């Protein structure tokens, strides 16, 4: 890194991708992949999400990525969906089967799968 300007340029380029402000239509899906997420089975969930998003032809608008600890171990694997201007959706106790439905109904169809969200699943 030669200068602060160079750093700022990367920041500007990446900002929309990560923080999805109002008006940005892209979807960002993050999977908690800290020690506890992984041991609860987050890896197959992440893999399924990536495969299904590609299969449904959503790769242009949807980014699937891993992240660190979300903080609610007893709900792992946790998947969160961020979309500009919309409230974040938190899916908990995810499985590959559930992930498929989330891709089809939420990411593609635009309707969150309520029964898998945090308020509808018991700890």
């Amino acid at each position, binding site marked *: *890194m*030669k*200068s*602060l300007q160079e*750093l*700022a340029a*990367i*920041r500007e*380029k*990446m*900002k929309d*991708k*990560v*923080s999805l402000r109002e008006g940005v239509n892209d979807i960002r899906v*993050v999977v*908690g*992949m*800290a*020690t*506890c997420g*992984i*041991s*609860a*089975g987050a890896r*197959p969930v992440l893999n399924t999400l990536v495969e299904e998003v590609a299969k449904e032809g959503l790769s242009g608008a949807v980014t699937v*990525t*891993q*992240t*660190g*600890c*979300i*903080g*609610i*171990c*007893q*709900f*792992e694997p*946790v998947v*969160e969906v961020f979309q500009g201007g919309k*409230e*974040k*959706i*938190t899916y908990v*106790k*995810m*499985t*590959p*089967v*559930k992930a498929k439905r989330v891709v089809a109904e939420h990411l593609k169809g635009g309707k*969150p799968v*309520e029964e898998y*969200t*945090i*308020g*509808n*699943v*018991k*700890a």
Partner: protein
Amino acid sequence: MIRAHVLVCGGTGCTSSNSPAIAEAMEKELAAKGLADEIKVVRTGCFGLCALGPVMIVYPDGTFYSKVTVGDVPEIVEEHLLKGRPVTRLVYDEAADKDTHGVTSLSDTAFYKKQMRLALRNCGVINPEVIDEYIALDGYMALGKVLTEMKPVDVIQLMKDSGLRGRGGAGFPTGTKWDFAAKSVSDKKYVVCNADEGDPGAFMDRSILEGDPHAVIEAMAIAGYAIGADEGYIYVRAEYPIAIKRLEIAIAQAREYGLLGKDIFSTGFNFDIQLRFGAGAFVCGEETALLTSIEGKRGEPRPRPPFPAVKGLFGQPTIINNVETLANIPQIILKGAKWFNSIGTEKSKGTKVFALGGKITNTGLVEIPMGTTLREIIYDIGGGIPNGKKFKAAQTGGPSGGCIPASHLDTPIDYDSLISIGSMMGSGGLIVMDEDNCMVDIAKFFLEFTVDESCGKCTPCRIGTRKMLEILEKITSGNGEDGDIEKLEELAYSIKASALCGLGQTAPNPVLSTLRYFRDEYEAHVYEKRCPAGQCKALARITIDPEKCKGCTLCAKICPVGAISGTVKNPHVIDQSKCIKCGACMEKCKFGAISKA
């Protein structure tokens, strides 16, 4: 070809509720049905659902079974694995929780709302393996600002003004520590990050390293600039493979971008970082032992002074900071000292991350502003005590800390108020105990840990803590005598006063604090040979209620030592001198006539 995986929890909670036997039974049953090549049994770490243990998950379908017993195994194999029909009676009921019904976002839960995520701000948000994502959320801007706009003295003044104190346990002011090292004259200095995290149950630092490794790297470079160091070490325990891998990736990416290495931001400032792995000795988290261990020698503490800031790694001025302390720093630089010191209490600024565990509904990682009360953490964030049980105490500070009883639930959590009630902040383990926990047994658990981990260099700790443990063992096995409690106290105070390092100096704390608040429990063990919580097996009394006993004789038949006598249709009695407290009779009685006290 493996077509399915059966994950059996091998965490501490489930292991104690018999999961190893279940895993074994599962393997045998699969072998017997000729499925061993198709279905693999995997023993995993804790799912965080210990209260539902033993837990089991079957993949690929992800069926979640809770409270599984060895007897359920054949049915699971036959029905689910062979015929593909999950055993519904064992499937965990995911029915809606009344409180949060309809909530679709974590941000709207009580668990989240009372938190304030500063050190954890990027955890769960960015991909820790992609440096660009860190940069997108202002990553490395603080380093850029420091190098291009600030003098080292300004950085140190900013840290002092912020009021940040060390999160590794002792709470030493970070700015002051840096100032000492900056003022030590030498052409070689070091910055060390303490990522040893040895407290049982604590995983705050691991989560930060796994979720936001660049924050720690950036902070170390800032510290290097402030004190005049060009080299840093991260001492991380080898048991954290994911954290290590992400640190390695992060360091490589930072080097590639020129954010580590030579002439950073063309300012002539050089800084690079190396990793060192700890083998898991608790004492190696102590700063002088840690430095000795990095030097490649046996990790034993040495007396201070000289402090590391004067004479540290390889004899050179060194600052050593905890992971969480460092993770706060980039934001303090960017948002200013005023912003940070407006959060928290008078003498404890900012937030603290806690690993919430034990008898609590929501286990997990929480970050709260200093000054939040224990009641808010346990009831609002933690969701209270499960199974309708009563809160008894919370333990903070791990093996060096103490317990906080119900009468202090409204104490605001900060460094000083915790010390005033006989506990301490420690690194952030928070274990909740309910009415079923025996406080003497808890004290014994922590003391067992410190006895195991004592490095043996000094006598008070090596021999004194062992003596204390012997007395506790005596008390919990029903052989306590008059004077034992006093002897424990005397030993505790003399070890605290004479041990060489923090491990020994704080090892008696769990005993002293349980004695302070639960002395009556100790006394019941010693004088009445009774364990009020019913935990100490040797002291348990199994009795039959003559009112409820129907005289069915079942218990007498099952008792392995013939301790139960009685005739048909008449109340039975247990001979206490013969009873070995195995509990077999209690399980057999259909009338609930037998109980333990």
